């Protein structure tokens, strides 16, 4: 456990070379404890799931956009799920939307985003050799892997995967008689999610401990990059809310398999009255959304953190309102726990509770608005460089605004009566949470690819990818607002059965075509990603001329990140374009005493203190060395 003890104190780093161990293939690429490799494992698995999740959505978009289409050509893949007359089976349609949601929310945007960048960036940006527990970190990935395998298997079983919507509300998900997907598929869903929760908790505990304990010298909380703040708060949210999902799942397991009645009451199904009484399906909804809503922020906060970092770097300007950004994120973190019931305004919830949750929900819009204004002010009078990462970050801000504003409609319980469970909701969360987080993920990949693989991704392909995706996402989700205002319910296999929704076939066709093209544009990214990994231009050490610590590591940092001592930190990470400085960036490792020309008055005060500390440290070092010899 060389890494564990060297990570605890930076002065021990001298010993690091003596402990250097040579990894074989298995310990380097598979059962690795190196946070960077684990981050990459999460990323590649996340990309795999994103492809699956995307393809599932294309299949149901075919159904919605081209209801009369002959789908016989899908039979080789989907088999019996294509009915004899060449149509998609309605139950399989529900399975598709369910799995699309589950995969995207949990496997792509939680594990793929938070898992990738929390793992990869936390030690690199705070100046640590690795996570607090490399072993737990490894377990975290492998629990996720196990969860993935189980969920993947559930796609292929005869009765189909879970089909009750990604929220899997009982009694539908509890009773096999209600739909075939609630049989084995649902069991596998529950097992997979249990593993997933274990993975998230192991990861989250690690992120929190690492950020609190392993920051390098000088890296106070007020000097942490906003990425780390975001990952830290995300982990806190996850740690507090995922166990509640577990309890919801556990009670559901009891109801399904052991005859309890937590969620079941007064049910007559399949020609018989069930013995269960006294349970409440609404209880499940409370428990589910107690995770489900914070989950939105688990998905979104890392993306916002990544964006803050990238926008500041590429605007060559400090992020505007660093403290306000942190306070907003703290506000979002706390409020995210007290707004869950806005998903349940029309669930039969006590209307008084509805009023309370409406007030709380609209309060959470305030920190979100503050963040947006701060991003805009960061761009204002900057010197903007449009790297692909920057483009995706600006795209994220756009989605965050568009999707966030529609949240004000839905958070208002009176307006929500009409809009609840219509395509308006679908448009809302796909923009604010789906696409925004996806863009955060993409921005992060483009920005930190050079650190991950030592090579650059092709920028031009990145531009094409961005514009195709940005325009594509709007073409897919913007029209859904109209469909939603018109009252089209979600999770409908077909809308032609109703007078009020027997229209907009053209618009749905348009959305489907846009979805297919947008998915196609992701192939550009896939090519760029895997090709650049091996054949991309070799990156320079600090390609974006950024201030944060990860760019002080070697091109291919080994396990332990810095070959020598861990650098100390002397300033916040956003000293871009500081007046008086010769360059337009001053990395965190540059002491204030080295930049008298650009120091602000209060920083000039700190120089004295800093000199004192450096002198003390050197004296300590000399003492240590004389002791050793």
């Amino acid at each position, binding site marked *: 456990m060389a890494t564990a003890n060297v990570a605890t104190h930076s002065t021990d780093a001298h010993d690091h070379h003596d402990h250097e161990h040579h990894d074989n293939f298995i310990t380097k690429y598979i059962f690795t404890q190196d946070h960077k490799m684990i981050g990459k494992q999460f990323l590649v698995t996340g990309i795999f799931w994103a492809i699956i999740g995307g393809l599932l959505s294309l299949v149901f978009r075919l159904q919605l956009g081209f209801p009369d289409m002959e789908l016989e050509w899908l039979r080789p893949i989907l088999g019996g799920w294509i009915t004899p007359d060449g149509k998609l089976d309605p139950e399989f349609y529900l399975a598709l939307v369910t799995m699309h949601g589950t995969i995207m929310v949990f496997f792509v945007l939680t594990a793929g985003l938070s898992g990738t960048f929390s793992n990869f960036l936390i030690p690199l940006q705070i100046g640590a050799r690795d996570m607090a527990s490399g072993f737990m970190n490894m377990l975290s990935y492998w629990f996720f892997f196990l969860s993935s395998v189980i969920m993947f298997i559930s796609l292929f079983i005869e009765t189909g995967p879970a089909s009750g919507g990604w929220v899997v509300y009982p009694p539908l998900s509890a009773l096999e008689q209600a739909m075939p997907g609630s049989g084995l598929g649902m069991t596998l869903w529950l097992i997979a999610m249990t593993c997933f929760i274990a993975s998230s908790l192991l990861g989250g505990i690690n992120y929190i401990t690492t950020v609190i304990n392993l920051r390098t010298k000088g890296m106070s909380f007020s000097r942490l990059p906003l990425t780390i703040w975001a990952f830290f708060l995300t982990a806190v949210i996850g740690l507090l809310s995922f166990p509640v999902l577990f309890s919801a799942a556990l009670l559901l397991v009891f109801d399904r398999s052991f005859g309890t009645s937590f969620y079941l009451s007064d049910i007559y199904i399949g020609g018989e009255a069930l013995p269960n009484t006294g349970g409440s399906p*609404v209880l499940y909804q409370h428990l589910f959304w107690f995770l489900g809503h914070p989950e939105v922020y688990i998905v979104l906060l890392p993306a916002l953190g990544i964006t803050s970092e990238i926008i500041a770097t590429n605007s060559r300007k400090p992020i505007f309102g660093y403290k306000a950004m942190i306070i907003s994120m703290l506000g979002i973190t706390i409020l995210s726990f007290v707004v869950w019931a806005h998903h349940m305004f029309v669930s039969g919830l006590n209307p008084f509770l509805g009023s309370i949750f409406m007030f709380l929900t609209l309060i959470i819009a305030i920190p979100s608005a503050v963040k947006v204004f701060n991003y805009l002010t960061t761009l204002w009078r900057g*010197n903007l460089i449009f790297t692909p990462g920057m483009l995706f970050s600006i795209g994220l801000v756009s989605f965050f605004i568009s999707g966030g504003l529609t949240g004000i409609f839905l958070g208002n319980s009176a307006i929500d009566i*009409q809009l609840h469970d219509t395509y308006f909701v679908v448009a809302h969360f796909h923009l604010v949470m789906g696409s925004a987080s996806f863009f955060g993920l993409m921005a992060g990949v483009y920005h930190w690819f050079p650190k991950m693989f030592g090579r650059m991704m*092709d920028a031009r392909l990145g531009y094409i990818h961005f514009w195709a995706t940005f325009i594509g996402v709007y073409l897919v989700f913007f029209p859904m607002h109209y469909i939603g*205002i018109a009252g089209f319910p979600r999770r409908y296999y077909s809308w032609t059965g109703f*007078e009020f929704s027997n*229209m*907009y076939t053209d618009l749905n066709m348009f959305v489907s075509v846009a979805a297919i093209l947008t998915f196609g544009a992701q192939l550009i990214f896939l090519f760029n990603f895997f090709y650049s990994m091996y054949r991309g231009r070799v990156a320079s050490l600090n390609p974006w001329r950024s201030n944060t610590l990860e760019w002080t590591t070697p091109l291919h940092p080994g396990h332990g990140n810095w070959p020598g001592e861990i650098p100390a930190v002397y300033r916040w990470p956003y000293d871009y*374009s500081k007046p008086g400085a010769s360059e337009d960036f001053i990395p965190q490792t540059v002491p204030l005493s080295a930049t008298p020309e650009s120091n602000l008055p209060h920083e000039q005060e700190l120089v004295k203190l800093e000199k004192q500390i450096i002198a003390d440290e050197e004296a300590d070092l000399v003492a240590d060395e004389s002791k050793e010899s």
Partner: protein
Amino acid sequence: MYGFLIAVGVLLLLSIIWMVYRIQTLVSVVKGSDKKIATGSNKINAFMFVIFLIGGGILMFWYSIKEFDNYNLPVASEHGVVTDQLFWITMAVTGIVFIITHILLFWFPYKYQYKETRKADFYPDNNKLELIWTTVPAVVLALLVIGGWKAWSDITAPAPEKSHVVEIMGYQFAWEVRYPGLDNVLGEHDYRLISASNVSGVDFTDKNAFDDFTSPVVVIPKGEPVLFKIRARDVLHSVFAPHMRLKMDAVPGMPTRFWFTPTKTTEEMRAELNDPEFVYEIACTEICGRGHFSMKKEIRVVEPEEFRKWLSEQKPYIVNNPSLVADLPSELKELADITISEYK
């Protein structure tokens, strides 16, 4: 054969793209543009944001105006007018914010694109600004919430005494409607009594159930309050009447309710929309299984006199099917028989 040709075509296309990609990479290496901080692409990207802003804006306004009558569902209930009004007020407020923030978001990239000669402003914070854009949204949101809260309280307040009660029960995959009959009181129900002839599980030992009747269509009077008593007998469903701006989940084991006052009869709406086929509908908006998309029920809104006439013509369950009360204790059976004879 076609498959082969398509494959060859795709292969050709891919190799052309590949060549172009390689050539442009090499060209950029030769030109040394990969060493520059910002290349010509920076200008193009900056410009694209402006194009996107203008193009997207035009498309949005054009489509929103052109399609207004299509996506704006006619409203036919009293509270629906209020919630629609709230919706459009919110739309105006958020629309303004949407447009202003997007103009800034896409114009700044163009205006402040990288120039080697310029340095960005070092402008790390301004507490006054932060304070302004915390309080202004807070005040605006508070106003919106208070409007919503008032409407919500009115909508969810207890139904007026004289409301016409209609029970709507969801099951896989249809709605069952039950009227309380002349006494306007629904009889008790018990899910264990459900059978093919007693779909709603009505408990006929309750005298109030004697005049209860079912109807294939939800018939309600215009201008009088109607109370939907909503329940489900298997999984969750949700009653959604889009024109009434009404939605409420149907929960097994937990009855829910929603009351409203329809403002336009079906005939009036037909005339207004110039659509003789128009009907008010109920759809299901809580995923409930295979037939989720097909749980349709018609609502027919009629003039109050017509409603009363219709009401008096309806035959209770027990009249249509006397075997429902065959097993009742003699005392109740007598009462039931009297009711039956009254309707004959």
